[in-house]
């Protein structure tokens, strides 16, 4: 019972309230102070909590029982309770840490924007929800954060709402996420039905798992499928929404419409990784569903590859980073798919560092270029922005996986996991996907190099008007870049594998590390050998990627053009430039037909059939009858008398008839 935990999400929330309600009157200075102090405080509290659980007093986790939330005694008991263990600790620290930096960065970046206070309010709110997401001790509370961050990303993507495109992007993000959340909901229902609880601890509890493991679905559709597999898959679909995996990745690139710091925080460092977090959080459950895992692996690898290919040809610097994010996330899921949760999570952390760095770097460039994002209009910025250039380069190398930078270790672990699952185990499918991931690694290196080259090297393509105006952003922006550069340089040492003499601290701390047990000597040797080979391979591929990229895009090389002119190149280029027409396809297959059908239903069923025909029709019928009867009143006395007489006769007939009947009985 540790109510301090509450303060971790509460500080940012207070910040949100203050900025949201009073922001307009307070003036930007105060706003920025409030906004950035809030996550810092949260960070300090989180840090304290972290100290508590690492200081070996036996407490491995903190818990705040909170209060009953959705609570029907004995039927459905969902508390509003927070749980702070290794996993959430790391996430909290990353969120608040990177978050604080990005808040600081934003102070510089958003200077003079009319929506200044609104921006920071949103940012704080996001931090709140994100922290709730990682601290929640049950799925439903996690879901609050889950949808909350979705909301904030919606608001922040559409931050400059005067532009329709931004709003559209925001809307798209929210809707696509909602689709994923739908699956998430159903997954929770399954948990409730079969586990009888949403408590995360209970869901990963071995006994419960064994109990449920035997249960399978009845009914035609999924008959025979294991319940746990079902849950895992549904939750994973939810994850694909948040973490932009096939088929729901389409929103992330558009999300770049938001301010760059937002892209850095939400769409690179934190929110998009929450899917990975979910899987790690429920590791045992996923492990109990091998089929689900293999699907995760497939999706992850495919996403990684697809995104990488698309990244090749993007000219918007942020789009490149966006697709690289998608691809990296694919990596993480691939890792999860092959069972290397620790590696995946490790990559989450390092990726948070270097991708944030990259985004902020690009932000710095964009800021300097007065919101020019097209790389073709850049080039040669090395001179004007030396510092940014250095940091961006660090980021690039880190993501490319150049030792000893952060990316190297995490990526290497993933690749090795794939190698182990595929080549060493001799499983063809996994090995296939291992090749894919290796290739992706190379491509990553390549397109990142392209990005650097086009932006910073070569001759300046900068618009004449901007020439000279471009200058190094100082103050908070620089500071944030600096810190993150260091982080992405050294972040890798958090989790140095054993055979390199490390202790995989992170893995152990988060409890995700599965250390191979009872290995004989030579098995261990073989393992390390394999690990070494895969490392070499990854090094080689990264180097190759960088090299090729450099050769392609170095000053005055005609290679890209030459490539584009070759027929296959042209074809591939077209595909990649147009993102394989996925958006168009979705529009054509789902969105437009749906609206058309709705329109049709509206006119056909709702208005014509029900309203006109049935409702007004019946009314008309009655009135018609009325009119008929009215006309029968001719005003013609003999006619009246005739009706009178006939009526009388008919009645007499009926009477005699009935009497005859009665008599007969």
């Amino acid at each position, binding site marked *: 019972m540790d109510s301090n935990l509450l303060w971790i999400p509460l500080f940012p929330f207070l910040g949100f309230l203050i900025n949201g309600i009073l922001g307009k009157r307070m003036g930007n200075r105060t706003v920025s102070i409030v906004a950035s102090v809030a996550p810092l405080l949260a960070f300090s509290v989180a840090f304290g909590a972290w100290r508590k659980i690492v200081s070996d007093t036996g407490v491995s986790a903190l818990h705040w029982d909170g209060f009953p939330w959705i609570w029907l005694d004995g039927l459905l008991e969902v508390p509003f309770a927070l749980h702070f263990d290794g996993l959430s600790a790391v996430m909290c620290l990353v969120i608040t840490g990177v978050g604080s930096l990005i808040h600081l960065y934003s102070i510089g970046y958003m200077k003079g924007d009319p929506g200044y206070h609104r921006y920071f309010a949103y940012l704080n709110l996001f931090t709140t929800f994100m922290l709730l997401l990682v601290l929640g001790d049950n799925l439903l509370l996690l879901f609050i954060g889950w*949808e909350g961050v979705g909301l904030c990303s919606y608001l922040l993507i559409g931050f400059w709402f005067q532009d329709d495109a931004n*709003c559209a992007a925001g809307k798209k993000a*929210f809707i696509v996420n909602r689709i994923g959340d739908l699956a998430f*909901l159903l997954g929770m*229902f399954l948990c409730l039905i079969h586990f009888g609880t949403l408590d995360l601890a209970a869901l990963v509890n071995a006994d419960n798992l064994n109990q449920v493991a035997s249960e399978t679905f009845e009914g035609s559709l999924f008959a025979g499928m294991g319940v746990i597999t079902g849950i895992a898959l549904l939750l994973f679909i939810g994850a694909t929404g948040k973490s932009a995996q096939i088929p729901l990745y389409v929103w992330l690139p558009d999300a770049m419409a938001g301010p760059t710091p937002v892209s850095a925080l939400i769409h690179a460092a934190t929110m998009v990784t929450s899917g990975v977090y979910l899987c790690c959080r429920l590791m045992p459950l996923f492990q109990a569903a091998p089929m689900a895992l293999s699907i995760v692996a497939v999706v992850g690898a495919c996403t990684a590859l697809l995104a990488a290919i698309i990244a090749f040809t993007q000219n918007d610097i942020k789009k490149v980073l966006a697709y690289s994010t998608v691809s990296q996330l694919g990596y993480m899921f691939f890792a999860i798919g092959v069972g290397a949760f620790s590696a995946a999570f490790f990559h989450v952390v390092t990726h948070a560092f270097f991708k944030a760095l990259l985004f902020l770097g690009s932000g710095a460039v964009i800021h300097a270029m007065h919101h020019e994002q097209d790389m073709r209009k850049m080039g040669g910025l090395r001179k004007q922005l030396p510092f940014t250039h250095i940091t961006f380069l660090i980021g690039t190398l880190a993501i490319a996986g150049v030792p000893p930078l952060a990316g190297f270790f995490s990526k290497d672990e993933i690749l090795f996991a794939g190698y182990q699952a595929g080549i060493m185990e001799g499983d063809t499918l996994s090995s296939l996907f291992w090749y894919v991931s290796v290739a992706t690694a190379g491509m990553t290196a390549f397109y990142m190099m392209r990005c650097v080259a086009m932006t910073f090297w070569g001759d300046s393509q900068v618009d004449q008007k901007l020439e000279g105006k471009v200058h190094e952003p100082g103050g908070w922006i620089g500071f944030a870049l600096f810190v993150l550069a260091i982080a992405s340089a050294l972040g890798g040492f958090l989790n140095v594998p054993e055979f390199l003499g490390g202790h995989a601290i992170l893995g152990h701390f988060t409890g995700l590390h599965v250390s191979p047990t009872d290995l004989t000597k030579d098995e261990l040797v073989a393992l390390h050998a394999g690990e070494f080979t895969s490392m070499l391979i990854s090094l080689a591929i990264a180097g190759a990627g960088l090299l090729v990229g450099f050769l392609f895009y170095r000053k005055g090389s005609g290679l890209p053009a030459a490539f584009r002119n070759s027929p296959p190149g042209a074809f591939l280029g077209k595909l990649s430039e147009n993102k394989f027409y996925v958006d168009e396809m979705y529009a054509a297959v789902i969105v437009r037909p749906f609206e058309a059908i709705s329109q049709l239903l*509206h006119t056909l069923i709702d208005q014509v059939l029900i309203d006109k025909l049935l409702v007004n029709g019946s009314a008309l019928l009655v009135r018609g009858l009325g009119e008929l009867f009215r006309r029968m009143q001719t005003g013609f006395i003999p006619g009246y008398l005739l009706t009178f007489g006939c009526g009388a006769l008919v009645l007499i007939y009926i009477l005699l008839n009935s009497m005859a009947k009665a008599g007969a009985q």
Partner: protein
Amino acid sequence: MIPELESFNLPILSLVTLTPAFGALLLALIDSNSKALIRQVALMVSFLGLLFSLIMVGNFDSSVGVMQLEENHSWIESLGISYHLGVDGFSILLILLTSFTMPFVFMSTWKAVDHRVKEFHIALLLLQTGMIGAFVALDLVLFYLFYEAMLVPMYLIIGIWGGKDRVYAALKFFIYTMVGSLFMFLAILYLYNHAGTFDLTLLLERLKTTHPLDVIQQFWLFLAFALSFAIKVPLFPLHTWLPDAHVQAPTAGSVVLAGVLLKMGTYGLLRFAIPLFPDAAMDLREEFCWLAVTGIIFGACMALVQTDIKKLIAYSSVSHLGFVVLACFMTDVESLTGAILQMVNHGLSTGMLFLMIGIIYERRHTRDLADYGGLASVVPVYSVFFIIAVLSSIGLPGLNGFVGEFLILFGAFRADPLWGMLAATGVVLGALYMLKMVKAFLFGPVVHEANKEVKDLNLREIIYLSPFVVLMVWLGLYPSSFTNLVEPTLSLYVQLLQN
């Protein structure tokens, strides 16, 4: 400090119910030219009603699920009609909702309504009496009385203070509702002749013990009741009166209609139709659930293609109440709790949405989405409130909408995964049409000159909107304080259904 009623037994339910009616009488005596006075008096009266209902809640024992604070006087002895009021978990929240909504409705009409002010307020007060009365009545005829009594004021409100096609809409509303309620009336009379009483509690036990109904009777009687309530809900395909009524009705009308009146249907299902004829209800469960699910999706699709904001929200009501109906036919406490919460939630969110549309309508006199856009930059405060309302309506976790939806969907999913899944798509669609509207309404560039001068919320409006927001958050984060009131009754009810 809530006064203990036992000490001096105050007919609290009668007070809650009839205060507005007396208020109406009071208004009738005021000169119709002194509008300000009329408005103030009406407001005071409605606040008094709120106060009384709070006292009622204070004296409501949430530990037991039985009828409470009952008042039972014989009224028309010769016809066996009694003045029998009572409150339990089914009704208490709805009563609260009603008497909570009304004051703010009155505040919202301050500027909106300026001709025949007196009649308008009288009508609204009578309407309030009708609604609360229907919620507390435990005698079938008494219920029918209030149920119909709501009709006339609402009819006048739409017809006198409504929009262009108000006459058509009002008539449609009236006749549509009459169709159902008349058959219910017959069914009530049949029950009376069968079991010899109009009193609900007596009926329930007599139907169980001494005067059981055979299958055929149950079937038809249930249909008669259900038809009436399905029209009120409105359940697809009986919903076409709602869009017209909403579009034509003045703001206050729409708010009351969406906020409370529609709940009459689902409440009726839970209070009368299902408990009185459980077997028939269970036989027809499938059909009704499918209708509900269809309604959820159909309503959402309709909302997606609307250009008139009010119409859009009207259809969203069809969709949302589909959830409630779906839950009404479940037999587990979870989804029933969800149903009741969802009624309240829908009352809050949709009520607030209509209030806000009324506000903008006062300023711009158009409801066509095409005439708006970019308001967020012109009226930031308004936009914030509006977005909150929208979020609550699309069931964002942490706001009220989610809790109800979650419980309902869970219940439905457990009963039949297919229902659960289909209904759940309603959540996605909800986000779809709502955000579409928000985008067209608030975001984007300000294209119309007229929108540049729109004034932001004034203090009065903020005052009457804020309580809604507060309640939304409260219900979203600490629903227990409401579910506790409901749960015991529901568990009793479920037991009753199961055997």
